[in-house]
């Protein structure tokens, strides 16, 4: 740990005042966005940490605080530690760890599981900004089931995972718009300069071309390595009627709510596929 001796029994540890979290569902382009931003001279990114949610997620700190601050004689009450201070203290150590590596630059952390504890992270890192990348759920779920065994075996689970992450991030963005920007994955890949400019403005950093070039030159970390880069996939055409029904049931409302599918289109698809799904499951039952 890098510290500065203070001449007493205390030491000083550096922490970054304004770290950045890239959040979003898995298979949504969080990696390419974090890597691209990490090429900006004011920012630093390594790889996914997989630390915070295992240490403190998703509600562990609130549970601890609720249990240990409820009585006057408890240490947290007696020392007048508010929830905000408690959560911030829990974040300081990890902040110091990242800051030690980032060499004075604002560090970026992106682990998709962080998305489910975005509100807690905002309190643990009160100076942090959040960049949420949102991708069409159909493409995300298709990528999931082609990538990871448990999603392949349980299509509904993949749909729910996408929905939960997106809902958590979008609700946070609505609640704290000054702290969270949402960008569409499709926009990032098609218009990287424009989308990254928006992100730079939000993060209050100057324009640099290197991250833009990175997005142009690198495709999303693909689940379809056997296909040439840029090959369009239409999951809807590849899925069975049951999968379509499951997707519409689990993720359809969120698709419409967040502007990824028009409400009329959702209705039309539900009319077409959800009865088929119901018939199938009833027969199976």
């Amino acid at each position, binding site marked *: *740990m890098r*510290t*500065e001796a*203070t001449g*007493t*029994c*205390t*030491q*000083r*540890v*550096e*922490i*970054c*005042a*304004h770290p950045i979290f890239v959040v979003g569902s898995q298979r949504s382009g969080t990696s390419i966005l974090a890597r691209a931003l990490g090429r900006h001279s*004011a920012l630093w990114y*390594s*790889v*996914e*940490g*997989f*630390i915070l949610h*295992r*240490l403190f997620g998703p509600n562990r700190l609130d549970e*601890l*605080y609720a*249990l*240990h601050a409820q009585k006057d*004689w*408890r*240490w*947290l009450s*007696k*020392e007048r*530690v508010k929830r905000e*201070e*408690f959560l*911030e*203290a*829990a*974040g*300081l*150590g*990890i902040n*110091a*760890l990242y*800051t030690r*590596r980032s060499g*004075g*630059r*604002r560090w970026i952390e992106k682990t998709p599981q962080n998305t489910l504890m975005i509100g807690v992270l905002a309190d643990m890192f009160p100076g942090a900004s959040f960049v949420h990348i949102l991708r069409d759920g159909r493409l995300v779920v298709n990528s999931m089931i082609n990538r990871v065994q448990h999603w392949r075996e349980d299509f509904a689970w993949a749909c729910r995972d996408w929905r939960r992450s997106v809902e958590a991030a979008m609700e946070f963005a609505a609640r704290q718009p000054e702290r969270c920007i949402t960008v569409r994955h499709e926009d990032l890949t098609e218009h990287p300069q424009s989308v990254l*400019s928006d992100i*730079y*403005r939000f*993060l*209050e*950093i*100057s*324009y640099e071309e290197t991250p833009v070039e990175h997005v142009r030159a690198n495709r999303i970390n693909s689940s379809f390595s056997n296909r040439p880069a840029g090959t369009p996939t239409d999951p809807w055409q590849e899925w069975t009627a049951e999968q379509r029904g499951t997707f519409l049931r689990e993720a359809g409302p969120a698709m419409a709510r967040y502007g990824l599918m028009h409400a009329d289109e959702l209705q039309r698809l539900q009319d077409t596929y959800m009865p088929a799904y119901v018939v199938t499951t009833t027969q199976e039952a």
Partner: protein
Amino acid sequence: MTTLPRPTKCHHIQLCSEPVFVIGSFRSGTSVLANALGQHSAFWYSSSEANFVCAMFSRLDLGDLYNRADYWFQRQEITREAFSAYVGSGINALFTVRSEGKRWIEKTPRNSLIAHVLAEVFPGAAFVHILRDGRYAVHSMNHFFNAIDEQTQTKWRAMGYAPAWGIDFRTACRTWRDHVRAAMEFQRERPERCLTVRYEELVSNPEPGFRVLTRFLGEPYEHAPANFLRSNRIQSSFPDTSEDPSPRGRSDPWEEWTPEQRRIFLEEDGPAMLEYGLISRDEMERLEHDASDRDLP
């Protein structure tokens, strides 16, 4: 586009390099010791147990967490030791901001069970283990509710706050044994980090006891802790003996216990009592004989 960059400067937090954990079984004098040490000008104690520390770190498997995130750690060349120290530094800061430059003391008996974790998370911390004769500690646990009014007792029981060691004799024996074993094992492994002091010796003769303690903690001797101990007895489970400053208290547990309680105590705590020098082999044989004799019709 050019914008003024948001202040990217880092700021600093203060951490205590050498905090102190007072560990030991329940009803062993951890409170009076922590409060006494807190009278020393180099230390700060809040006079309240920070139970959340144990709750926060006891469920953490830092080794597993480190191994599962090994890619990040390897890439950043972060050792497990360094990672653990960072994990603890936020909680350290929470205490340090209150101790105002002094070395903070935390004492929660359950910390005894995770001393090895705390040693990793607070790499500069020193541990003081207070060891009390198991008979008196168990007896005190067994009478814990005596010192609490009935209304509070009822409330605690209803809310599930009542400690199991205050209700069940065997649980009290096991609690003493488990805490003492954990602390003694930790001291055996890390003698440079942990000092065990006997409660009975410290209370009978505070000054030499605190001289040893402060030397171990690297601080000059001051009279205040010993004076505090002389004028403040252990937080009692026996309200009617509140002015009794004797190390063992007025009641002799052995005489008060039923034959079954004696047998349970010897069964659960006898080996630890012998191993840690709290009873001689001769005395143990006498107690065993005593327990079996009393059982005869």
